[in-house]
């Protein structure tokens, strides 16, 4: 992924270390127009350093793709110990999320010699795999008209 500053929404940092996305400028990859407006919170727990940035990805599940379709890619500053991003005007439905703490801010996941990540990462519901990667269904959160929260704890 390139250093895509265009994905960076306008943010303001509150005293509680919460980041609010004021305007949803970033939904460039909407799979389809939302059927109804909903608010989604992405909450990243156990942020241990304020170096670099958090790169979040919101996926919409069920629109003909079991893997999910990228709905938003968001880059926000890292804030210890928790970051909360609120997205407005999304359609109701099933969603999943992933996060990468890009500590060196080089736009790529740092890995060891066999490709395992060496920067913190997380997925919604803190889903964990059995024989392989966590299933999208374990990462999924249903979002209705009242909105929803997708939580992920960083793996260090």
């Amino acid at each position, binding site marked *: *992924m390139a250093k895509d500053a265009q994905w960076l929404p306008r943010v303001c940092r509150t005293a509680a270390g919460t980041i609010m996305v004021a305007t949803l400028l970033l939904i460039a990859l909407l799979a389809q127009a939302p059927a109804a407006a909903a608010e989604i919170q992405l909450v990243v727990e156990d942020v241990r350093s304020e170096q670099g940035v958090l*790169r979040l*990805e919101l996926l919409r599940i069920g629109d003909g793709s079991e893997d999910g379709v990228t709905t938003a890619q968001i880059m926000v500053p890292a804030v210890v110990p928790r970051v909360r991003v609120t997205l407005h005007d999304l359609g109701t439905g099933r969603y999943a999320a*992933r996060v*990468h703490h890009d500590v060196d801010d080089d736009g*790529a*996941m*740092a*890995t*060891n*010699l*066999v*490709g*395992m*990540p*060496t920067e913190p*990462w997380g*997925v919604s519901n803190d*889903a*964990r*795999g*059995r*024989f*392989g*990667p*966590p299933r999208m269904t374990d990462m999924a959160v249903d979002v209705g008209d009242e909105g929803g929260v997708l939580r992920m704890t960083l*793996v260090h």
Partner: protein
Amino acid sequence: MQRRQFLELALTAAALAPLGRVAAMPLGDTWETAFRAALEEAPWLLGYLGCEDRPFDASAKVTGTWPAALAGSLYRNGPGMHSLGGWRYRHLFDGDGLVQCWRFGNGEVRHRARLVATDKLERERAAGRRLLPGFGSLPPDAVGLAGADDLNPANISVLPQGDRLLALWEAGSPYALDPETLATRGPVTFSAETRGLPFSAHPRQEPDGTLWNFGYLAGLNKLVLWHFTPDARLARAVVRDVPRIGMPHDFVVTRQHLLLLLPPLYPDPGADAATLLDSLRWHGEEATRVLVVRKSDLEIVTTLELPAQWVFHFGNAWEDEAGVIRFDAARAPDPRLMTETFRELMRGTEADFTTSAARPYRYRVDLQGGTAEEEPFADMLGEFPLVLPAEVARRHDTLVMLGRDLDDRPRHDGLDRVCVFDLACERRASFRYPDTELPEEHLPVTAADGSRWLLGPSLDWASGQSLLRVFRLDDVAAGPVATARLPYALPLGLHGRFLAG
């Protein structure tokens, strides 16, 4: 590469120990109950009871004359705590690492032991119960894994390295401990690009201090090779593709080469298995491959074949000028000791392990001729082969092993004898332990004045005391010259290292 691909690769690698069927929480753990009942009938099972979650410190009572020249620390490790929250592990290899230090000098012997405070144990202590799957155990309501280190119990061996002591597992990172207090400092990362890579529990250290190790990634079929300089800096770490690598536990080094045996035991990814152990399949019709790696560029130069066999531990290897490598090992016909006996032991089921136990074998690998041959060199059961540190990767004349004669029937299911083989003269000297004692890995060591000794830890199950005995390496049959006795019994450990001084 996209972030998604990175994450998926990570999680695939993380699935070393699959999380499987969720067992219902029992009212009382049947294995715990069964083991306690078996212990009443067979008190030698004390060695597998497991320790409590507490520190151990004592001054040992010494009888006999401790050699004045023999001063230093014997560090040991092994599965220590098997039960937590009333639930007992289903495999011997899952217990939390218990690191011990026997420190001796000035006529005094002190002992200290600490459980390694791994990330896993800290999470489980906080929860008051087991949370994570082990190699062969799946606790009720287990949580999933983000990586192999999530289930790292740091419970196989130790390695003194500079100002720290490493507690070693084989599928994840070493843990650093304070060598004096044995307090856990945390997992070790040798470099950014090697973070989280497996570091086996049997690194080989040459007499000049150069250290070699390997690690296997059974799911990804990759072999990691490690090379450290004598001052403990990481010189090289490389990854090689090795199809069907399985789970090699130990290896040997010569002046020019590293050599691994790859027994045909692999995880079956299609198995509906609760644990990694349950997913393993033995392919006895296949060969055990001999993998030879050139030290200079860490490339695999030769792959040869031997009959299917299971080897946990090697003694030592050396190579002559014609390119012939000789080494010795404790060779078993198959891995039943691991896949069956060490599981059944946890519920106290006594097993006749004489057909699955290892025996002393020697090997000859001709790199020019492309041949690999093997032969037994002693008609007995044998395990824990070791040589003097000064003879690693050189021709060795002395090999120490625990053993048991085939017609011997001690009052326990373990090995009962320590043997010192003089390989040049093909002679065996040995000391047979009393029936009430279970010997553990015995280390041949050299004292500051050049004298050669054998450090022999054991468990006296009748008195409920752990012991350290000292023998003259060159006269083991005469029995111990000194015995240090603790006021408590600790679980039988696995491997150790001696640090003189």
